């Protein structure tokens, strides 16, 4: 009954769940990426009012954005319990740093405006520090994951590089978000920030793309054996086109009547998605690189099936009301004043 197009349940279900998990990781990286990025940029704001504006632009969204992380970890835990334990107990310390970061920034949203005025600076500082910690931790974990979860000097250096690259990446997507949501001075600043980040982005993506096939023979094989690079060439080519497009658009921003303010953000989404697809291709079918495939790590089909039934109904609903929230808060962020 659980077979699909002749594939037995223990083949297609793990594949579908790996896809679902990938989707929620991608959504998390993009969505929390821009709001962590805005957090990283706050110290660069010109004065308190601009800072308030930046925080206001993500205020209604951050909680839902982080929920995609909970879903991704949840799916990992639900669908691939063996991998979940292995990955998270190996990454024990970076996970701790990530959580502390998320805790600090999450509560700062509220404390910075509710505590006594004299503590606002402190909470602003914690908001920045938390955003940065969470981002660095995520980049570091990504690096270690690419390196097959091994701790050696080389892998740690590579992971530090990834941590820095991701920081630039998040700051970049955060800046493009501010171009979209901010006006006037804030928008002009955001354009400058975004332009500065592009260089770092090129170095970061380049370094990761070069290092992964060099350290992993399997990834090398997947990309460069036979004709596969031909099928795969759209990924790097499209990325380069997007980078060039971003560079040229940003040099001409902001435009009159705010034309095209959405372009940098949407292109950044595209860039993140392409990078993600490249990684996903490199790792399939492994969920723990070189150790455990999704088929070996999957839980019992009947448990996956019961979740899938729910997901078919619930995930579209979630996407629907998420769209509603973005619609309600569309347009330029307003300083909600009522006097």
């Amino acid at each position, binding site marked *: 009954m659980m077979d699909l197009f002749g594939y037995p349940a223990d083949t297609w279900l793990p594949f579908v769940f790996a896809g679902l998990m990938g989707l929620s990781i991608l959504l998390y990286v993009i969505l929390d990426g821009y709001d962590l990025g805005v957090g990283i940029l706050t110290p660069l704001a010109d004065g308190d009012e601009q800072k308030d504006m930046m925080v206001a632009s993500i205020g209604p969204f951050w909680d*839902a954005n*982080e929920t995609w992380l909970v879903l991704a970890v*949840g799916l990992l835990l*639900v669908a691939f319990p063996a991998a979940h334990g292995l990955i998270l107990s190996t990454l024990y310390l970076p996970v701790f740093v990530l959580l502390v970061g998320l805790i600090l920034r999450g509560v700062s949203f509220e404390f910075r405006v509710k505590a006594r005025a004299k503590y606002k600076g402190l909470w602003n500082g914690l908001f920045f520090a938390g955003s940065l910690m969470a981002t660095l931790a995520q980049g570091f974990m990504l690096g270690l994951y690419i390196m097959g979860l091994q701790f050696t000097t080389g892998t740690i250096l590579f992971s530090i590089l990834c941590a820095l690259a991701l920081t630039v990446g998040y700051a970049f997507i955060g800046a493009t978000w501010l171009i979209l949501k901010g006006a006037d001075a804030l928008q002009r600043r955001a354009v400058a920030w975004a332009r500065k980040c592009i260089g770092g982005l090129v170095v970061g993506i380049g370094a990761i793309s070069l290092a992964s096939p060099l350290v992993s023979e399997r990834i090398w094989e997947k990309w460069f054996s036979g004709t596969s690079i031909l099928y795969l060439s759209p990924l790097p080519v499209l990325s380069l086109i997007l980078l060039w497009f971003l560079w040229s658009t940003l040099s001409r921003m902001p435009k009159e009547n705010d034309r095209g303010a959405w372009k940098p953000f949407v292109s950044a989404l595209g860039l993140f998605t392409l990078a993600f697809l490249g990684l996903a291709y490199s790792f399939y079918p492994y969920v723990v690189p070189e150790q455990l495939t999704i088929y070996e790590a999957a839980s019992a089909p009947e*448990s996956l099936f019961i979740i899938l039934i729910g997901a078919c109904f619930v995930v579209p609903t*979630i996407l629907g009301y998420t769209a509603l929230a973005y619609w309600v808060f569309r347009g330029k962020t307003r300083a909600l004043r009522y006097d």
Partner: protein
Amino acid sequence: MEALDTLILSRIQFAANISFHILFPTITIALGWFLLFFKLRFQWTGDLKWMEAYRFWVKVFALSFAMGVVSGITMSFQFGTNWPGFMEKVGNIAGPLLAYEVMTAFFLEAVFIGIMLFGYSRVPSWLHTTATFLVAFGTTMSTFWIIVLNSWMHTPQGFEMIDGVAHATDWWAIIFNPSMPYRLAHMLLASGLTVSFLVAGIAAFRYILGDRKETVRSQIRVGLTFAALLIPIQIFAGDMHGLNTLEHQPAKVAAMEGNWSDRDGNTPLILFALPNEETRENDFEIAIPNMASIILTHHAEGAIPALDDFVAEDGTVLHPPVDKVFWSFRVMVGTGFAMLLLSWGSLAFLWRRAEDGRRFAIRKLPRPLLWGLVPMALSGWVATLAGWYTTEIGRQPWLVNGVMSTAGAVADVPAGMVLSTLIGYLVIYAALLFAYLGVIIYLATKARHGEPLTEMTPASSEAVVDAIAREDRGLTPAE
């Protein structure tokens, strides 16, 4: 030794994290419904005092919600970092339940809280009320799913073990496991009581500081009324819960009652004692004869399980640590009776007519009762934590009752790492708790001065409440 240390530290870390987490959901679950109540009262009566109540408590809600979310995210990692064995063995059951919680509850509340807090001027009033309702509904759904999982760990059924891994056979039986309805009801009532006393207590604090606004008086009344309504139901539900536990986890009840050896029925209700694991009896026992038998079996000679029945032939102890369970239970029940006395006592005074013939004048409330309400503002937290300690420690040495032991689930991480992160969490939690209480007190004192609650800061929920108040003054929502 290494493994043992990791085990103990992991337990302390898990307990610290979940204890910190539960503080905030306990508030938000019921406060969401209270906010809906305030908003609807305002819409029906047009009386500004309800809007002021909303204005004040929505801030506490936003703050508590943020604390609940960040500590909840920590929780969702804890299973993997600390108890990988748990998911490997019972993941087929725990997994779907957690997944349904994320899908049906977390997204709902996380998305609509944005609209509830910041959306008033942007959406029609009905949509704002709907968002408020959906947030309250979402927190309640969260509670449902997590309590299902937790209750299944206490009274597991609907599964079979294949090669040491649990496989679900009957989801209906898993979800509606025997202890779930009792635990869910008891937890929801606990949340209602926590918020009732919080509202009454903070309002009493403002009243004592000299803030005699109508809204403050109404908040004392609302808090006390809900408290007085809920506490008898809670005591009844607790009793039923205990009877259910007696059936399914007799060792836990034996520990709660401090009943070491079989007394041929006739078990006394112990009011005070220091359970002694060495001698396996109670020191300094003060007890009411036969009372425990009466409560649990409804007749004086009824037999109650004894701890000695849960020691294996070879001397292995198969019951939970007695003193912790015994005392946690007494703290909870004691707090419950304090709540009963205070709420009914206060209402009895309020019921008497004032000189002008009106009932429920707060000034009729005697000082000691009014002052008593202030420390009781946090009584819900005390009882809830104590209750959970009874429940969870009472399940030991099992993690899933009769299926897997706690020691079998622990991760293979160095003890030093667990210890250092534990210290990290504790420091942060202590600081945040301090800041949280500080801000609530600050908000209460500030409200008293009648100054604008905060200057308008864009990213704050003030915007909404101000918009509502504005509309009330007949102005259109500002751009």
